[in-house]
């Protein structure tokens, strides 16, 4: 862990990503303190106003402060990101461990099912699931979680298979450790590095997918402040009030960019070959 922090400190790109993520998280957590207005607070005297001192990112067609909505939107994005990736990573870890450790028939069954999920484009699969479950924040998270499960399963399975070949695993078997304990104590901790990298990259993917689903009207429902919903709201006003779309898009790009930077640098840091 100490070594990890030392290496992170040396990686400037990683720090930029890390600071950016930290900012988004702090903004999300402290939204009520930071946002000057409520996310759904309308002002009839200030409709579609450009950025000014009073409304630094301008207002939308209902006179809502875009800055405040973006700040509250960070909450939604982070929530979706964490819970959806939590679902995907959790199931992915479970399936990947079973698949990689036991191999054989069970591996075949799990991986073929995952292949079927892989065959669909992410958005299309998420759309289908949301369409079946009905559009809402919770269902969006479930859908994204399901969409992300196969990626995690593959990453975990591959790593498990390579970790399993190490002699400390045969050694553990040879001293009488039960298979379940071997998976929990010896395999799982040793696959964490690539898994954590995948989680970071998955977070950015989940946030993006949420924005896309909300934009298409199948994710978070208005008037909830989601960045994707805001993009959709601003779509028609783009020509008259570009700030309605510029700032939410900027927020999405910034967040994804930071997560990807951090994920990339994590991958470099945690790569055992570079140690």
């Amino acid at each position: 862990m100490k070594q990890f922090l030392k290496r992170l400190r040396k990686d400037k790109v990683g720090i930029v990503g890390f600071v950016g993520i930290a900012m988004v998280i702090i903004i999300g957590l402290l939204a009520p303190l930071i946002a000057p207005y409520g996310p759904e607070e309308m002002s009839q005297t200030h409709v579609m106003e450009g950025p000014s001192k009073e409304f630094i990112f301008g207002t939308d067609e209902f006179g809502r402060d875009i800055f405040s909505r973006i700040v509250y939107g960070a909450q939604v994005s982070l929530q979706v990101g964490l819970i959806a990736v939590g679902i995907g990573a959790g199931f992915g870890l479970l399936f990947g461990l079973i698949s990689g450790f036991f191999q054989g028939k069970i591996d075949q069954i799990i991986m073929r099912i995952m292949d079927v999920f892989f065959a669909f484009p992410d958005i299309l699969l998420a759309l289908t699931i949301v369409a079946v479950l009905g559009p809402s924040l919770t269902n969006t998270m479930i859908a994204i979680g399901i969409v992300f499960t196969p990626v995690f399963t593959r990453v975990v399975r591959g790593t498990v298979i390579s970790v399993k070949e190490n002699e400390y695993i045969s050694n553990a078997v040879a001293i009488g450790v039960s298979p379940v304990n071997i998976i929990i104590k010896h395999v799982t901790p040793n696959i964490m590095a690539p898994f954590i990298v995948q989680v970071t990259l998955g977070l950015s993917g989940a946030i993006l997918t949420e924005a896309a689903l909300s934009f298409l009207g199948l994710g978070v429902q208005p008037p909830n402040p989601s960045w994707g919903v805001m993009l959709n709201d601003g779509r028609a006003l783009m020509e008259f009030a570009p700030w309605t779309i510029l700032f939410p898009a900027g927020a999405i790009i910034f967040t994804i960019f930071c997560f990807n930077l951090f994920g990339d640098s994590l991958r470099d840091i945690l790569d055992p070959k570079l140690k």
Partner: protein
Amino acid sequence: MSNLLEINNLSIDVKIEKSYYNIVNRLSLSIAKKQKYGIVGESGSGKSLTSVAIMNLLADSLSVSEGQILFEETQELTTLSNKEMMKIRGKDISIIFQEPMTALDPIFTIEYQISEVLKIHFNHSKKEMREMIISILKDVGIPRPESIMKSYPHELSGGMRQRVVIAMALICKPKLLIADEPTTALDVTIQAQILELMNELTEKYDTSILMITHDLGVINETCERVAVMYAGEVVEESSVDSLFSHPKHPYTQGLLKSIHTLGDRSEKLYSIPGNVPTPTQLKKHGCRFASRCPHVMDLCKEETPPYVEVSEDQVSKCWLHTERGEYNEQGQKASVASEEYEKTFSD
């Protein structure tokens, strides 16, 4: 003296694309209590498989098709369930693997890894375990055990790690220690230390050793009896002294000839021509060594040779020692073979 481990007619098959190929054929050997037994052979001769079979850890594609492995004359290891086997592994029989660099889990301290063995098999208090670990680390020759046990595997050298592995294998005072090429990955000076250490400790703990190696030097240093394996079969079984002074089987003779000794300035090293046949190349009948044997006769290719008791403590699986071998058209092979051998060695 009663036997600690008795392997009777053990055959192991490998399944390749729905057909079975024999890779260990009717192997029999017995290890007495406190005995140091060696199995020597080339890569692919089935020696490691035998050790894995004793631990009942054969991979899914491998299966025991015949024979039994008796532990302490009562327990049939091939038929025990995984649960029963887990109680034996690490406690009564432990194994040391070849590669010390990866034998320890990189994320746990030495102390944790050794204590894991104790936790599985005994109910000691933390304090007792600590003391036991310190004393075993001292026994395997690790300086400052109190601080070393707090370190992680990557902080130790290969020799130190192998010592820790030995400590792990011996902490429950097992009755049998299987050492699968324990020194192959170490450099020569450390090799001798590790072998000596294993000798000392097994004597101290009354443990029998099954030493698996391709290095006859290791056998010479540690073992009392030895089985020479070739292509899944024991071709010669004898006391170490007899094997080195008068090897009988042509394969053993070849192996001994291939040893390179210091100061030997001959241009070329001796090598047995050809390779160990793969399981798919093996025939049902005939001697498995026939394709590489310098004394091969027609008979060898047709009929499987019997085990012949060539002397009181030496068994060899070769036609040369039988009457049929000697009355063969090429005549007097057996005596010629050993004379020839002795000549090359006295040179």
